[in-house]
């Protein structure tokens, strides 16, 4: 009996000691680190200014998507060739990834060494995988990824220049009538008859926006008409540089119309850069002055409808032109005439009537032909490949090449 009690006490003591030992092990020993990643590779990022290196590696054996998550992330270290210390990690990448771009202050001409470790729970760090010996970035001379974009640009711009030269040489070019531009005379004439002013808004973007430039060329033509008809032209602007340029343009138009005395620079004025502040001021003036004609030519955003609806409410004849697709429906709904996208850019050539400017329109048409050919080829190839049920045949490859290389940014050759 006594022996049995001693035995049970000994067993209980042994269990307690074992448990304490296990607990002691848990609290003092770090968890087992995950297996290291391998095959660390670093190469220069192509088609750049030498600002980045591409890092890739094979995942740790413990980085299995279906297993227990023993790897939480990877830490990447970098040092310049010849340095002894690795220092702090420069990048981290979550588990499951095997590539990362290092664009952290890479210097062209400097050689770097890399190290990667897998990090598990409680920051248990694996053995490192290293790339020693040095790898550096190179400054490229040509961005191959944009090769097709460059080719298309040269072809289309070449066509524009060719047709301009052809027009200068006397070639007869026919351009369809654009109702919105034909209406300029009508609008200015109406303002003259009513004895009221003409309002011209050149968008709300600065002079570095091509739509503002296109709007200014239309302004020149509108100003010439107002000078000829002796109507008053008012141009509020939301950018100082646009105001200065608009003054030059209008002054030139009045001079060419033989009416320099009628030019009043105070009618071209700056209001504010603030979008809705500008709109509030302009619409207030529209209601008070009751302009007979309103022109909106340039880049517009949410203010387009506020302006056009106010113009509509005062009974003005309105002509708008913009290359902002999201604002076109508003102008179409509220204005009498709208120049849609390319018509707006064609306006200056159309209104000037100069043959060499007309040539540029033919160049644009050539660009459309190129676009249409690519569209037909791509759509045709994709449709036929789909009908044939092949995803890797010649037709599918052609469709993919057009999509990814010619219209995409994958470069020149697969």
């Amino acid at each position, binding site marked *: 009996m006594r022996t049995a009690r001693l035995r049970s006490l000994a067993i209980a003591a042994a269990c307690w000691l074992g448990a304490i030992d296990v607990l002691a092990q848990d609290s003092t020993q770090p968890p087992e680190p995950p297996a290291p990643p391998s095959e660390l590779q670093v190469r220069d990022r192509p088609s750049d200014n030498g600002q980045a290196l591409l890092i890739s590696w094979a995942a740790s054996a413990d980085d299995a998507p279906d297993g227990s998550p023993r790897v939480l992330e990877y830490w990447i270290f970098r040092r310049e060739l010849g340095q002894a210390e690795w220092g702090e990690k420069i990048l981290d990448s979550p588990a499951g990834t095997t590539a990362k771009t290092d664009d952290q202050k890479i210097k062209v001409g400097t050689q770097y060494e890399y190290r990667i470790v897998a990090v598990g729970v409680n920051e248990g760090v694996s053995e490192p995988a290293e790339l020693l010996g040095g790898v550096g970035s190179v400054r490229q001379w*040509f961005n191959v990824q944009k090769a097709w974009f460059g080719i298309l640009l040269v072809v289309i711009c070449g066509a524009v*220049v060719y047709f301009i030269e052809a027009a200068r040489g006397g070639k007869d070019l026919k351009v369809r009538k654009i109702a919105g531009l034909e209406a300029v005379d009508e609008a200015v004439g109406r303002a003259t008859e009513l004895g009221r002013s003409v309002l011209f808004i050149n968008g709300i973007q600065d002079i570095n926006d091509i739509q503002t430039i296109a709007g200014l*060329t239309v302004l020149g033509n509108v100003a010439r008409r107002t000078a000829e008809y002796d109507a008053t032209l008012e141009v509020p602007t939301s950018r*100082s*540089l646009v105001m200065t340029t608009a*003054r030059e343009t209008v002054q*030139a138009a009045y001079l060419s119309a033989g009416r320099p005395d009628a030019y009043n620079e105070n009618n071209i004025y700056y209001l504010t850069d603030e979008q809705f502040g500008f709109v509030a001021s302009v619409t207030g003036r529209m209601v008070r002055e009751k302009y007979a004609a309103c022109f909106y030519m340039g880049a517009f955003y949410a203010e387009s409808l506020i302006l056009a609806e106010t113009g509509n409410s005062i009974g003005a004849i309105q002509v708008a032109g913009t290359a902002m697709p999201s604002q076109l429906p508003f102008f179409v709904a509220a204005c009498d005439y709208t120049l849609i996208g390319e018509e707006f850019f064609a306006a200056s050539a159309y209104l000037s009537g100069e043959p060499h400017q007309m040539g540029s329109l033919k160049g644009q048409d050539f*660009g459309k032909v190129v676009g249409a050919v690519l569209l037909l080829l791509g759509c045709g190839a994709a449709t036929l490949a789909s009908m044939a049920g092949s995803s890797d045949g010649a037709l599918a490859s052609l469709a993919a090449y057009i999509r990814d290389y010619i219209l995409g940014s994958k470069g020149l050759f697969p």
Partner: protein
Amino acid sequence: MKRTAPLLIAATVGFIIIVSTFIPYTESWGEDSMIWFDILAAVAFVLGGGNLLKMNLKKVSERRPGWAYSAIIIAAFLITLTVGLLKVGTHPNEVFWNKPWSGDYIGEGSALWWIYEYLIYPLTSTMFAMLAFYIASAAFRAFRAKNMEASLLLGTAFIVLLGRTYAAIILTGWLPELAHDAEPSFFGQLWNGLRLEKLTETIMGVFNLAGSRAINIGIALGIASTSLKVLLGIDRSYLGTGED
């Protein structure tokens, strides 16, 4: 000379930006040119501010109709400029805590922040909110079925409007949906395609997208052509008279 110099500057900078798109080596040149523009625009802002003051002061002094608005503009302009330049009410930053002017000019609690937060934001929001009423009035006018085209537009708009709301489910929810596990029959596809939400998807994803892309292609070509005319000096209308 007054026209030639700007033309040369515009052409040079324009071609630099084009070149920097294709040659990574010259990337920084393009970025630098854009910084020059920002500097120029900042300087030109003085010109704009000066013009604003001049115009409104003239209006006030001549007591022209609406001169009171001009007086408000002048007062608002000068107050905002002064509190911004003098950093009125800003708190020093943590690094230079003993320098009263070291704080952010628009930091929370400053006078300029207050003007933005309690005057400019509410005012601009009010203007933006008015857009809803303008959309309603424009839609009413655009959707009047005066002719065939307007009727088509009205019908399409009506489908899209319903398709984007729960009304689509209430009105056409009874039409059978496509079964995921079986090859769809012709009529199955037809009935499914007639559900208002599916019709809306088709209108927006096929007809609307095709039209929008066509417009975008035209715009891209127009931009290329116009830019080229400006860079080559074929279109000089924005350069003025050339007289000094």
